[in-house]
């Protein structure tokens, strides 16, 4: 065991730190001009799409360099590298792996530049956790596909220019995972209707998307017809060491500790309440376990050993922690936890936080789905 970096890795860390020292301003002082300048500079350094191969415009960073970069950025609460979140997380990797030359040239530079947003058309009203049962119909007519059906829970659909879409091109298949095809669809194509859904915290992040005889050129198919499932699965696999998520949780926990110091509960600071102390320590311990689980996962990757579904362990921890930290933050406030808006502490920041967990907890596969994955793929129990 050795937690030291190799000299060239240490040099890279120094380079990142020097850049941050020189270019980053504190959280409250980040104006639009600063953000524009920031985006230009990190793009210039090829830190956007840092893991992607250099020949498509990525940074060609090694696994360890990616971790160092994310680590230092997160420690200083730097703004994200690039703004096209889904494009960078899975659309881009999918196009790099399965796309044609034309598709790469057409889409990758815009994803890196953050020219516009992508959204992800996977879930349907009757296909959530059981995604492969999706039914959005797709029939080929000459050089076009004609799509009819509905997607739902499509995050940022209303602000996106393009969508990565899963459709069913064949129902005559033995297993439901076959017969699915992946298309890249421009959102202003006639026949697409987007209807935002208001969520329980009052905001709208996701939407329903309806497809009514939407015509998509065949050249916008990603990968082979009928193999959209494989395209999706391997693109999603790009997103999993989980170390980056730990920083967000560490930050939230540190704010919860501060909250416990400043709020009084039962006539004393909440931070002196043994129950609150134990719950904070328990969250702290699980967050540290996530960090270290991630390091063990990374070590296996670095050694070139096969990695499988172990990342579900951290996904499960993260989901439960997102919920628990929200609950804890409200309980620390005592009866004032029941206020909201301007009447509440920090303008209702924690009330809002405590209602936003479903985005993380349900979005990436529910906790019970993660438990199934662990039981079936790691422990070898029979499938449901």
């Amino acid at each position, binding site marked *: *065991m050795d937690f030291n970096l190799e000299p060239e890795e240490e040099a890279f860390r120094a380079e990142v730190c020097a850049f941050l020292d020189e270019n980053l301003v504190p959280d409250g002082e980040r104006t639009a001009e600063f953000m524009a300048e920031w985006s230009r500079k990190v793009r210039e350094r090829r830190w956007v799409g840092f893991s992607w191969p250099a020949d498509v415009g990525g940074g060609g960073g090694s696994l360890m360099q990616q971790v160092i970069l994310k680590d230092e950025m997160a420690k200083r609460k730097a703004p994200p590298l690039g703004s096209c979140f889904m494009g960078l997380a899975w659309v881009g990797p999918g196009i790099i792996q399965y796309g044609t030359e034309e598709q790469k040239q057409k889409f990758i530079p815009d994803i890196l530049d953050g020219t516009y947003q992508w959204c992800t058309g996977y879930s349907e009203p009757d296909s959530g956790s059981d995604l492969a049962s999706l039914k959005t119909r797709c029939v080929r007519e000459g050089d076009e596909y004609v799509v009819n059906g509905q997607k739902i829970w499509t995050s940022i659909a209303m602000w996106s220019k393009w969508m990565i879409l899963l459709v069913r091109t064949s129902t005559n298949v033995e297993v439901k995972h076959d017969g699915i095809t992946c298309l890249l669809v421009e959102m202003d194509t006639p026949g697409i209707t987007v209807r935002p859904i208001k969520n329980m915290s009052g905001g709208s992040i996701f939407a329903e998307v309806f497809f009514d005889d939407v015509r998509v050129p065949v050249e916008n198919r990603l990968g082979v017809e009928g193999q959209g499932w494989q395209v999706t699965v391997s693109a999603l696999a790009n997103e999993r060491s989980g170390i980056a998520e730990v920083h967000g949780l560490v930050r939230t926990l540190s704010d919860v500790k501060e909250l416990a110091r400043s709020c009084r509960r039962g006539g004393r600071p909440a931070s002196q309440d043994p129950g609150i102390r134990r719950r904070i320590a*328990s969250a702290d*311990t699980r967050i540290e376990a996530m960090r*270290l689980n991630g390091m*063990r996962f990374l070590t296996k990757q670095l050694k070139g050993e096969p990695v499988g579904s172990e990342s579900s362990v951290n996904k499960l921890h993260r989901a439960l922690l997102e919920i628990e930290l929200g609950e804890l933050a409200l309980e620390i406030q005592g009866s004032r936890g029941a206020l909201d808006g301007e009447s509440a502490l920090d303008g209702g920041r924690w009330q809002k936080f405590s209602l936003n967990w479903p985005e993380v907890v349900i979005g990436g596969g529910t906790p019970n789905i*993660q438990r199934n994955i662990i039981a079936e793929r790691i422990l070898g*129990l029979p499938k449901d």
Partner: protein
Amino acid sequence: MNFGFSEEQELLRAEVRKFLDQNCPLEEVRKLSETPQGFSRSYWDRFAELGWVGLGVPEVHGGIGLGWVDLVVVLEETGRTLFPSPLIATSLASAAIQAAGSEAQQARWLPGIADGSLIGTLAHLEDSDVLGCAGVELLARRDADAFLLTGGKHMVLDAANADLFVVPFKSGAGEEDISLAVIERATAGLDVEPAGSIDVTQRQGRLRLDGVRVETDAILGEPGGAAPLFERLLDCGAVAITAEAIGASEAALELTASYAKQRVQFDQPIGRFQGVKHPLAEMYVDIESFKSLLYYAAWALDNLPEEASLAASRAKAYASEAFPRIGIDTVGLHGGIGYTWEYDAHLYLKRAKWCRPTFGDADYHYERVARLGGI
């Protein structure tokens, strides 16, 4: 960056596992648990010959000179088979002597520890049951250069089998008055009384001291300066107990998962039901997580002492909470068969119940995590 074991460590693991599988499967563990001493001298001697008892002892004193990460590898395996032995107790006494013993003290005791002839232990707890320096109330009387000790210690690991006792005592009111004495079994005024254990594979007991005379050559380090070392030994104890908990929990999970694949009810293996599948997945999540915490704590003991207390507390807190739940699910998911004496499930549950308070339970360690984490 490498948060994994070296080839040598993997080899060590394979050798220990092979030895234990061949010599001391659970049937043998059960037989040993019925003997008064609770362990086998001949396996202990073999362990010593293979270098596993003196793993941490410097080479010059007959050991191998390795660290806590290496010992964790051995303890995961002894935990897996619930191997009864005074390895943890002896390692703690050995660590105390290595850390603070003079050259003469090291030469006097360490070779015997490494070759298996001296079993050591740490008498870390008194009747107040307060863990840490605050719990050291055994007050010495001065007699010229020597100290006279009268009092008791309880929950002393392998008390009846031990030849050497590392005993913390006080010569004044404060933590700056704590010393560690090494007291040999034959010393006049020392008496040991074995206590029953919820885990039949463990031995512990009470130590009675009635005017036990401790000469200065039996004090480790400067008299009065032992508080930091004593705290570190408690961290070492928490790490060692948790390392065995990893192996034992993994064995419990394997036993239960394999039962869930075979046992058929309602025309299908019960492992297909989510009510069975999900608790098994939770066991896996918990084991992997306190394993990561524990590996880091062991590494910190060797390489980053200033972080070791927090790391050890996180690991022991998590394990103390999770392992008993794993033990209960191991018995519960088996149904009736898990409740029987004959089936092995209860052995893991009992280890979990034994492990939970030993060197600090979840309440104790979470409180320490809170304090060390700045609240």
